[in-house]
């Protein structure tokens, strides 16, 4: 998809960046400007003579210059409606964009202010869309005249209204006209739902496309591709870029390789202690590794930097969650959401907290909001599946797990969950398939095998069951994980199985293993008695006890020499 071998002309790229930064700043697109400046700073500085000339302003803009200036200062102090009112009659592109964008921001601000304090059941967004619809009508009427930035705004409005196809078209034209507008690329990325759509997109062949692809791969969980892409970007000259580093860390995080991710993020934090941008990911990783001291340190330092940022609130939320104070954690996540209701991780993490507090309905709400914000958050789908499992609605639960699985096809946890649901629905064959798949994608918890074994036992596939149990006990010995219950059940079954099939050595071996565990001791003993009974029927003697003492199943040919039956009480156990 990406031509990684294309070299990027860094000097011209830097010039483009500098020009784009000014354009974005003029129009009040501060977040894009921030990103662009960071990338520009990652490149080598330009010589004084190489600085680009800025595009001259059109004459109709210069006529409206005063109005534009006034409006811009109102925008800066966040008096959005006032800015829009000043510019209401302006026709030049820049002024028109600023007018529409101020109206959009004004509407957003009002919506944020109007949100109820408690983030319980949020009111439906219906009546909040009136201003969006008005904006859309007006932009639609002028559609053919809009420049790249206004088209971007049109795309944003369409996306907010749920009109995905139109939004994609608008954003594509916006990007074609203004390839350096990172905000437009980001919006487009939010609309791409799967790989096929990504391939089918006709984006311009600009070096910004590399960044876009890296971002999309990460979003779509195509993590290896993302890593390759990011590496390519670093090689091309953006190695100093904090964004590249942070996204690499994210990729590792997605692939569940915690160590490299933590390292990278800590590096970033050390380089720029006031950088809050990916600190919530770092806190997630530290939480997973249960590194309390580190997390505490991180929480305190970000708190000192800025208490009222979403990332800070998420970090602190994680900190409290790790300490077990879930109510406080929820409080902080809610604060994060008040600051930015579209912050995905806060919703998902809040959902997790509610689950911990056993508040299923609130958890469902939180997860649903997470999904509304971003359909591709597999943790939210998984969480929903869990809640419905608790609510005992198996079909819903299946659907959600399936969605989660589709987002991460190689994650065994989803498959295990699917398998369990199918089991509950008594659809054992599908369950078997799921567990089998989970096993083949390297099940990290080692539960797949034993489940497979149990299912096969249920469907009376003895051979298979035995095979699975055997594999399971070997695996648990290798991995050192000890799930005592399962293990002893495994041994018990195997012992019975071999006994049935008259493989007395194996049977004995496993029966002895049974005796190691308290719950199956009795059965083990009775099995051994049975075995010895059988053996005495067949006439085997002390050589058997010898091999038992060694603890290895000896595959000795069973001789059919008849012996006198040895009464059981003569057998001695060596334990």
């Amino acid at each position, binding site marked *: 998809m990406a031509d990684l071998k294309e070299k990027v002309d860094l000097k011209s790229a830097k010039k483009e960046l500098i020009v784009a930064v000014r354009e974005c700043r003029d129009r009040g697109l501060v977040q894009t400007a921030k990103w662009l400046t960071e990338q520009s700073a990652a490149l080598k500085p330009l010589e004084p003579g190489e600085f680009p000339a800025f595009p001259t302003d059109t004459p109709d803009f210069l006529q409206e210059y005063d109005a534009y200036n006034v409006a811009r200062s109102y925008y800066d102090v966040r008096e959005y409606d006032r800015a829009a009112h000043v510019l209401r009659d302006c026709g030049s592109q820049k002024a028109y964009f600023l007018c529409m964008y101020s109206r959009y921001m004004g509407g957003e601000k009002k919506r944020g202010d109007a949100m109820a304090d408690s983030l319980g*059941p949020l009111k*439906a*967004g*219906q009546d909040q*869309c009136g201003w*969006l*619809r*008005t904006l859309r*009508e007006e932009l*639609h*009427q002028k559609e053919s005249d809009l420049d790249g930035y206004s088209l971007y705004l049109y795309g944003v409005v369409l996306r907010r*209204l*749920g*009109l995905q196809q*139109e939004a994609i078209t608008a954003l594509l034209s916006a990007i074609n006209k203004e390839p350096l507008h990172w905000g437009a690329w980001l919006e487009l990325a939010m609309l791409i739902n799967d790989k096929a759509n990504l391939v089918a997109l006709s984006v311009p062949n600009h070096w910004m496309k590399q960044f876009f692809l890296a971002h999309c791969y990460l979003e779509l969980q195509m993590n290896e591709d993302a890593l390759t892409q990011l590496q390519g970007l670093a090689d091309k000259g953006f190695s100093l870029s904090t964004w590249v580093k942070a996204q690499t860390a994210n990729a590792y995080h997605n692939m569940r390789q915690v160590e490299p991710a933590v390292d990278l993020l800590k590096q970033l934090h050390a380089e720029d202690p006031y950088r809050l941008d990916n600190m919530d990911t770092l806190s997630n990783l530290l939480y997973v590794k249960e590194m309390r001291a580190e997390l505490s340190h991180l929480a305190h330092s970000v708190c000192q930097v800025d208490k009222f940022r979403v990332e800070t609130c998420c970090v602190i939320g994680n900190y409290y969650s790790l300490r077990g104070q879930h109510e406080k954690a929820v409080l902080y996540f809610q604060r994060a959401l008040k600051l930015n209701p579209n912050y995905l991780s806060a919703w998902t993490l809040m959902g997790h907290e509610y689950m911990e507090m056993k508040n299923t309905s609130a958890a469902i709400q939180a997860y*649903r909001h997470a999904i*509304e914000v971003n359909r591709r958050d597999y943790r939210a789908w998984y969480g929903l599946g869990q809640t419905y499992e608790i609510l005992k609605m198996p*079909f*819903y639960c*299946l*659907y959600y797990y*399936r969605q989660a*699985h*589709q987002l991460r*096809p190689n994650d065994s946890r989803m*498959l295990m969950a*699917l398998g369990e649901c*199918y089991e509950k629905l008594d*659809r054992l*064959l*599908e369950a*078997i*398939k*799921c567990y*089998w*798949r989970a096993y083949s994608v390297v099940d990290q918890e080692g539960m797949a095998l034993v489940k497979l074994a149990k299912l096969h036992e249920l*469907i009376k*596939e003895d*051979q*298979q069951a035995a*095979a*699975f149990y*055997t*594999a399971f006990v*070997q695996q648990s010995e290798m991995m050192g994980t000890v799930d005592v219950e399962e293990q002893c059940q495994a041994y018990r079954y195997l012992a019975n199985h071999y006994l049935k099939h008259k493989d007395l050595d194996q049977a004995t071996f496993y029966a002895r293993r049974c005796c190691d565990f308290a719950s199956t001791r009795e059965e083990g003993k009775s099995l051994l008695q049975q075995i010895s009974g059988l053996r005495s029927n067949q006439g085997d003697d002390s050589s058997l006890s010898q091999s038992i003492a060694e603890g290895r199943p000896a595959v000795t040919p069973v001789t059919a020499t008849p012996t006198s039956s040895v009464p059981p009480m003569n057998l001695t156990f060596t334990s």
Partner: protein
Amino acid sequence: MAGDEIMDSGFGQILVNLDKLRTLVRQYVDAHQYSSALFWADKVSSLSNGEGQDVYWLAQCMFLTGQYHRASHLIRSKKLDKKNAACRYLAARCHAEVREWQQALHILDKLDLEARVGPQVRSDDGKDDKLQFDCGIPQHRVESSIALMRGKIFESLDNRDQATESYRTALKLDVYCEEAFQLLVSHHMLTAQEERELIESLPFAKQCPEEEVELVRLLYETKLKKYDKPRELEIPTSLDPLHENLDVVVNQAERNYYNCNFRTAYKITSKVLQQDPYHNTCLPLHIACLTELKKTTELFYLGHKLVDLYPTDPVAWFAVGCYYLTVGGKHDVARRYLTKATTLNRMFGPAWLAFGHSFAEEAEHDQAMAAYFTAAQLMKGCHLPVLYIGLEYGMTNNLKLAERFFKQALNIAPEDPFVLHEMGVVAFQNGDLDTAEKYFMDALEKVQAIEKEMLTEKWEPLLNNLGHVCRKLGRYEESLTYHRQALVLCPQNPSTMAAIGFVHSLQSHFDMAIDYFHKALGLRRDDTFSVTMLAQTIELYIGEMKPYEGAEELPEKFEGIPLPEYNVADVGDVKLGDVTAELKLEGDGPMMLESWGQDASTSSLDIEVEMEDS
């Protein structure tokens, strides 16, 4: 000179110039000093011994000072009413002012014929020369005023047919008589068709100079009824010099309002009102726009201003009533004020309609219908009250009656997309899908003929209904297109989403269906239809789908899972886009798998496991 007369009274000779005195009287009238004018007119008429025109002017002055009976008595005692049309008119006018309708009518009817014949016939009656005079108004205008007066009297007596006739006569006699035209149009006495015929029949050419023919005709046309079908918005070019004229601009606004471009109409009316804050025709329109756009603060302020300045004008109370309607929940208060408006002027149509709407919003169907019936009687030529009556019947489930009224509305205004839409809904509820479709398509055509690009969101229910009809007829793809268009107009509408989900589930696209039901439920959590459908579709979907991608890589021997049959009960009440459905599910849930074959999956496991034994 005739004016100079030397009067010989006992006190010597008084040289009086009667003409000068007469001019004096006129000047005082112009300067609104009616008492002075009365005094001198009295003296003049005595001095001239009761000459016709002096008596006439004396009567005028009495009229202007409000002494109506005195004026009427004066004219009748001098028998002027018998001879002169203008005097007759004045006498009748005096009685009309004090609302003595019968008396006025009586005066007008007397010797009607004689007056019509005209002054030419009088030449043989020399004795009556004294009574003939030129009162400065051309004869046909006088006659037209008489007819107008007659019409007003008939209207006050509730004799609307006669009134219409009289107004028509008035117009025919004098094309410039705008008041007659205005009364005809604003009281909705004629249907659109009849109005147009009237304009055609007016003898413009006879009465207007060449260049004014077009102007007058076009000005009248701009006043014509605008509610019968959506129309183009431009002003004819010959009216260009007048395009700043507020009347013409208001006409633009009214067209926009009818085409449901409320914001544009509001902008235009606001501008008009800035220039002329109490422009009569603009005010009701402006109030209506404010109500539609729910701008309560402005309505409040406007209502207060109007009531303070013009408490006798029904528009003021209409504004107040509309404010209470918009604010919501204060319907009885609103009704109080609207009643006041209608008491002040019985013929104020908008107030009656608003009155009916307030009942309708509270779901008091009988009262609403009563109000609409009154409105229908008063506004014969307007199809709106009839349309609303039909709507009320529809809501109370009297489909037959509703249909009848819609048909009546259709008769009056055959091209109104609103009426066509309602006819379609009735047909749908009767189960007659083809007719319903025809009506809906008709309505859509009409609307699209005007608004080429994007329909206003008022028409979103129409698109949704088309979607429902197509779905019932089994044309799922078409249905989806319509629903999507509706979604484009009104993006976050849960009923539309539920409908789309439903169509997808009928087409067995279960994953899309589930998606849409989720969205619908996200917007409106208590929608039973979506909840039920979601549960069903999830079950069907999971029953049908394999557990994960690539599950068929393992060779399997499953037959496809046969889906259960299910009947979808009728989707009721699709007016205005509501979707409620009862789903009858026949047959069991997804059937269990038939075969549990010995798969190769087990064999591959064997290979794995065998490695351990050695």
